[in-house]
Structure formats: structure tokens, C-alpha cells
């Protein structure tokens, strides 16, 4: 049966059993991401429904700042680019150092993002904007840190994969997992674009 196989990184022989295996593995991860995307979609819907529930507390205009969130956006977009470079280095590069360097850069950008985001939350807390203050803030702190937690998981995953690249090298399993991690990382970028547009831009222009 002729089937189109995943056109990403070739793993071993083209069209061989390893390739087929990677194809099925990655397909499963796409499906998982779809399920995860649904979680975010529902959190967005809940957020939208709870915008009115400020209960006399601070609203979007009192809390959101464009500058840090714009920098965060730039950081994440840059990290997607560097992960792309890591993928290219995995496919065409001649060794671990290049791959590890790009993975490290991505990790660094991700951690900078998390640091800035934590700082944003601290600023909001300082203004008395705790999740327990209102339904609106609950929805905000249900949605945005959920993305942050995903980024944190992604960072841990990069670390784990870096250890595997160093200890085991880039065998089929490492490659497949790097491909999955790539999908995950880019997926988080897409989600962040939605967070930035809907929550921050949307909140500031209301």
C-alpha cells in the first residue's frame, strides 16, 4: 500500500522500517497535540466567557503591559527559529556540538521567556491581582500559566534530550524524540501567538 511518509528528517534508510516506525510515532504525537490544543481552546473559551467577571477588581487595562509581552513573543519566536536550526543541524550537521549549541540556545531563550513571564505575574501580584481576586483573574491565571507550564515542560525535555544526545548519540529513538520535541516547541509558539493576540492585545485594545 502506498503511503506518504513523514517528510521531516529522514531516519535511516528512506522508506525503510525505521522510517515507517517514525512515521507512526510522529503521527501519534500530532494527535496528542491536537488533544492538547483542545485544552487550550477550552481555556480560551472560558477566558472569553469570564472577561466580564472582574468583580470590581482590576481588569485587563489595569494589569497588562505591552512591552514585556512583546519581548516575550520575540523570545519565543526566536527560540522556534533556533530549534529549526537545531533540526537542520541534526539532519545535515556533522556532529553533536552544533546540535547541542542550538538546543542550548533554544533552552536559554525558553528560560528567558519563563523568567520574564514570572516577572509579569509578580508585577500583577504586587498590584493585588491574585487569581482568587475575581473570576476574570482566575481565568487569566488558568490560561496563561498553563502555557508557561508547557514551556517549562519543554525546557526540561530539551535538557533530557541534550543528555541523551551526549550519552547515547543521535540514534533513531533520539531522533524521533527530537522531532516530537520540535513539534511540541513550535506548537507552544502557535499557542503563545494566540495568547498574545487574544489576551494581551485584545485586553489592551478593549
Amino acid at each position, binding site marked *: *500500500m502506498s503511503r506518504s511518509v513523514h517528510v521531516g528528517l529522514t531516519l535511516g534508510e528512506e522508506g525503510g522500517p525505521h522510517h515507517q516506525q517514525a512515521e507512526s510515532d510522529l503521527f501519534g504525537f500530532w494527535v496528542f497535540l491536537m488533544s492538547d490544543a483542545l485544552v487550550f481552546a477550552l481555556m480560551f473559551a472560558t477566558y472569553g466567557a469570564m472577561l466580564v467577571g472582574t468583580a470590581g477588581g482590576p481588569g485587563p487595562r489595569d494589569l497588562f503591559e505591552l512591552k514585556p509581552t512583546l519581548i516575550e513573543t520575540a523570545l519565543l519566536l526566536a527560540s522556534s527559529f533556533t530549534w529549526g536550526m537545531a533540526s537542520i543541524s541534526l539532519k545535515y550537521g556533522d556532529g553533536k556540538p552544533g546540535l547541542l549549541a542550538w538546543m542550548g540556545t533554544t533552552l536559554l531563550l525558553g528560560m528567558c521567556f519563563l523568567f520574564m513571564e514570572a516577572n509579569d505575574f509578580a508585577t500583577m501580584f504586587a498590584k493585588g491581582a491574585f487569581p482568587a481576586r475575581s473570576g476574570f483573574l482566575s481565568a487569566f491565571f488558568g490560561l496563561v500559566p498553563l502555557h508557561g507550564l508547557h514551556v517549562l515542560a519543554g525546557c526540561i525535555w530539551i535538557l533530557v534530550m541534550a543528555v541523551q544526545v551526549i550519552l547515547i548519540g543521535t540514534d533513531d529513538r533520539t531522533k524521533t524524540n527530537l522531532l516530537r520535541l520540535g513539534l511540541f516547541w513550535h506548537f507552544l509558539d502557535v499557542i503563545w501567538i494566540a495568547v498574545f493576540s487574544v489576551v494581551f492585545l485584545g485586553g489592551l485594545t478593549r
Partner: protein
Amino acid sequence: MSGAVLPAVLGRFEWIDLPFVRAWENPTISEIIGAGAGALVVVGALAVAGLLTITGRWRWLWTEWLTSLDHKKIGIMYVVLAFVMLSRALIEAVLMRMQQAIAIGHPGFLTNDHFAQLFSTHGSIMIFFMAMPFLTGLMNYVVPLQIGARDVAFPWANSIGLALTAAGAGLMMASLVIGQFSTGGWSGYPPYTGLAFSPDVGPDYWIWAVSIGSLGSTIAGINIACTIYKLRCPGMTFMRLPMFCWTSLCTSILMIFAMPPLTVATALLALDRYLGFHFFTNDLGGNVMNFANLFWLFGHPEVYIVILPAFGVYSEVVSTFSTKLLYGYTSLVIATMTIAVLSFTVWVHHFFTMGQSANINAAFGIATMAIGVPTGVKIYDWIWTMFRGEVRFTVPMLYSLAFMTTFVIGGVTGIVLAIPPLDYVFHNTLFLVAHFHNMLIPGTLYGMLAAYNYWFPKAFGFRLDERWGRRAFTCWVVGFYLAFMPLYVLGASGMARRTAEIFEPDFRPWLYVACGGAFILLAALGSLSVQLWVSVRDRDETRVTAGDPWDGRTLEWSTAAPPPEYNFAVLPTVTRRDEFYEGKRDGNPYSPPVRYDRIEVPRGSILGPAIGLAAMSCGFGLVWHMWWLAGLGLTGAAAAIIARSFVRRTDRIISPGEIEAIERRWLTAVHEHRPISRELERTRANHGVAEAMPT
């Protein structure tokens, strides 16, 4: 005896949380029943452990079963879990029926709180820990065999899915022994289940049992869907898939899309309860309607998650036992997909009375009625399959027939409830309870039991006892009608559901009949146990080692019973629907291949059960505010996943020599036994080789 004990270690545990202490201090019948149930869990667990020790089977259980990644064994373990949980939830149902029959103008023998726990656990278990594991186990067992695959797409994730489901079920059982369960019903509506009104551990047990179980179901759904998409054998195009695979695919897609709303709903409720968020509270901008929408966005597709696999089972059973090609295959495929899509467009009908506009209600009412159309198509297709077929009234076929008649009655009452103005009258009455039991008992339970009787010989190599099977069947059907038809009358007369005490003496006769029906259902469960016992005892007379006891049509019947670990020595090639059945008529379907190649099968892993244990510890720690245990569980689960990514020897190789020996033994058995005609399939002459009679 109140006050927290060692709060640093045991969190908010107090001695009074033990049902035994409560029964000692306050020996009412209600408390004694609670303590008895708790004792049953403890004694049961000890008895199983003792039995394993005496028979020296711990190692066997661990290496052969718990750590196995074989989809067939995982499937069987799911079904065992489902039967255990079915027993508990059915006994709870009997207790509730007894209470309502007694508590007419009288408080009865259960306290309101105990009664509320019973209906909450009954519903939660029947949906999440009976129906879900049963159908997941079935899909796990049957789908790879039917599509000609050697395993599922993700064997390791499969074992995690099972372990998480078992962990959720474990929390349900723990709530009997330590603390108490939620009193908020299976749907756990806030604000009642919020911190303000239920500060006890009950809703937390519900939240974590359901969340962990639903994670397991999401994983199972992804796995089955990917298996069907990616691992079909050569020639197995989508329009040649057995009908059960189609319904499994649709169920899996529904799981992938419908489990996230449940996870979100329970997670947000947890944030409300643990961190003081205001998603669903009455004050500070919370909105309970968000919960209703999220929950039923899961809850309605869930109805089809549990019903579609049964539709698949009926399609297989009716076709096999009518000796006919399934009538209207294409229309059944389209109907199944239509149901799957429509199931996401009707969730508002669960709360017509909650204040949205009449137009919204009308739209959702019409969508609800529309689902009746594809379902009707299916019923007609099954009837046409039987028409002029050579129908054999075996136990699975009896369940199918009982389903068709009973399910139509339930469908009609569903149309009644789908009309919003009528729903205002019936909402929250026993009419609704009668309706959904009328859908789920024939629509899920009968299907699962038909499947159990149908595929049991495949899984264990011997048939189930027909006589006790029929007795069980009779009890399930008679019991169902007696237990639930009166509820239609009571509901239409205005009796509210979930009522612990009744003040209308005219309800008495109907409640008596319903209680009698519940006892017959209990007898049905007993008959099932006897059937299993008798079948195991007499297994030497009912062996069907050759693997094809029912003149089967699909690929799973072309293997030995039980099938070897690798399922197929050579992956089959399919050229048409019902390949095996047609192959039998074309010539010898049992010819050995020219040569055998080595086969890789997944090596067992302890990390699946480890993750289940970690998840259960995490959930238990969260329920009791034992933060150290919760943290330990979470870290443990994460560590196990990371550890697994370092494992490289994930497969075990079976050598061609081993395969040839296994296959030769089976083929000898096939050729040794005389092919038997369909009339003899329920006799001792049936060794699993079917005579290729003309259709």
C-alpha cells in the same frame, strides 16, 4: 476522637474518617453498611494477596500480566477491572432501590448523605470504571487482530493507559475505606461540590479519580486511533475494515476530542477547591454555567464513546450468527461517522432548563432528534442483515436482539426528552434516569456482554457455558424491564431523581417492582460469575484451540485461540471484506507460509504500573492534603517517563524456530479436528474448525 492525626504526614486525616470508627461510635445500619463495604474492600484485597501467595503466583502476575505490553493481555486486564467495578456499582444500585422501596414516609435505613454517596459512586463507577475500561479493553484486544496487526501503535503508552485507569479505580475503592466519596452526583456540579458547600474530601476523591481515569482514556483513544490509521495490514483499506474497527475508530476520535473538556472541568474545579480560584463559585465573578458547558461538552460525546463500540459488536455478532455479509456496510460507516460528529452538537440538551434562550434550546433539541436518524439506519441494517439469514440464537445473538428492541424504546423516550418544553416537565425526574439506563444498559452493557461471550473463546481457547449464559441473559433483560419501566411511570408522575425519602404513598407499588428488578439484575451478575466458574471447570470439553468456533468472518478468527503473542506469523493480505470467511470458502485458509521470519514484540516494562502507582499516590496525597505524597507521586511519574526515554532495548525478538514450533502445533490442531457445521457449534464437537458450508 476528632482532630488531625500527625498532620505533617497524614494531612487532614482524622480517626473519624475511618468508616469502622464511625460505625463503632454511631452503630446505625447506615454506618454499619459503610463499614461493611470498607471491610469488604480490605478483606477482598487481603484474600487476593493471600491467594497469590499460597499459589505462589506473584511473580507470574507481575511478569506475565502487570508489566506486559501485549495488547491482548492489557485488554483482558481492562475487562477484569470492569467486572470488579461492575460488581461494586451494581450492589450500590440494589442498596439504593432498597432504600427507596423502604423509605416511603419513613427515613429508611440509609442516611441522606450515605444515599448521596451511593448514587455518586454508582454513576461515576459505571461510566468511568465499568463502561470505559470494558470497551477500551475490548478495543485493545480485538482491533489489532481484526486489522491484521501485531500490536497497537504505542504498546508502552497502552500500559500507562491501563495503569492510570486502574489508579482512578483504586481511588474509588480507597474512598470506601478512608474518608468518604462525593455527594455531588457523577457529574459533580459546582457550586455544590465547591469548597463553600463541600469542604470534605468527597469531591476531591471524585476530581482525582475521574481526572486520572480520563487521562488514561485520552491515551487509549490516541493509541487505538493511531493503530487503525497506521497499522492496517496490506490491502486493509478503510472500506474493508470490520465494522467493529470503524466504531472503535469513531470512539477513539471522540475520546481524543471529548476527554480534554472533562480534564479541563475537573482541573478548574480543583483550582477552585485548592487555590481559591473563582471559576465556578457563586461570588467574585465565578460562573457555574462554565462547568455545565465544559462537563457536557465531554458528557454527551461520552454517551457515544460508550455506545459506539457496542454498535460495532452487534454488527459483528449479527453478521456472524446470521451467516450473512453485513447489510448496508457503507450506510453503517456513514451513520457511525455522522453520530460521532453530531454528538458534539447536542450538549446543551443536558441543561435545557438553565436559562438560555428558547432559540438555542430549539436548535439543540433539533440536533438531538437528528441523532435518531443515523441510529435508526443502524437498527434497520441489523434487521436486514438477519433477514433471510440463517440466524443462530447463541448468547451474543440473544443480547443483540434484546438490544434492538429495548434500545428503540429508550430512543423514543429520548426524543420525548429532546423536546425542550417537555424536558421542562421531565427534567431531574426518574423519567430521565429510566431513559439513560434504557440507553446504556442495552446500548453498552448488553453489547459488552455479547462481546464477552463472543470473543471469550478467542481469548482463552474455550467457550463459555451456554446454559448459564442464557440464564444470565434472561436475568439481565427481565431485571432491566422490571427495574426501569416503573421509573418512567414514577418520573412522569413527578418523582425527583436522587431522592432518599419519598412522601407519596402512591409510588409504593412501582418502587417495589423496581426493587424486585434490581434483585434480578443482581442475580444476573451472580449468573455471570457462575457461568465463568462452570466454564473454567468444564473447559476441557469446550476447547476451541483451532480458533474459529463460530464460522467467523474477520481476521481475528484466522489465528489460534488464544492467539500467539505476535498474533500473525505472517501479516495477512486482504483483498475484500470478511476475508477469512470468504477464504474458507475459496480453499484452505490455513496453509503455512514458505518460511518464517523473526518477529519483534515489545518487551515488558515495569514503568507502566509504576506510573499508575505514582498517579494514585499523587491523587491520594492531594485528596488528603498530604503534600509530600502528592509531590512524590508527581515526581515519580515524571521520572518514570524520563527514564523510559533512555531505554533502548524495548523489543524482544522471537526467532523463526520458535515461531515455526508454535505455528506447527496450531496447524496440527487445525488439521486434527473435524470441521463442524454451524448447527453443532454449541456442542462438544466444536474444536474451533468451521465447516465451509455454502452461504
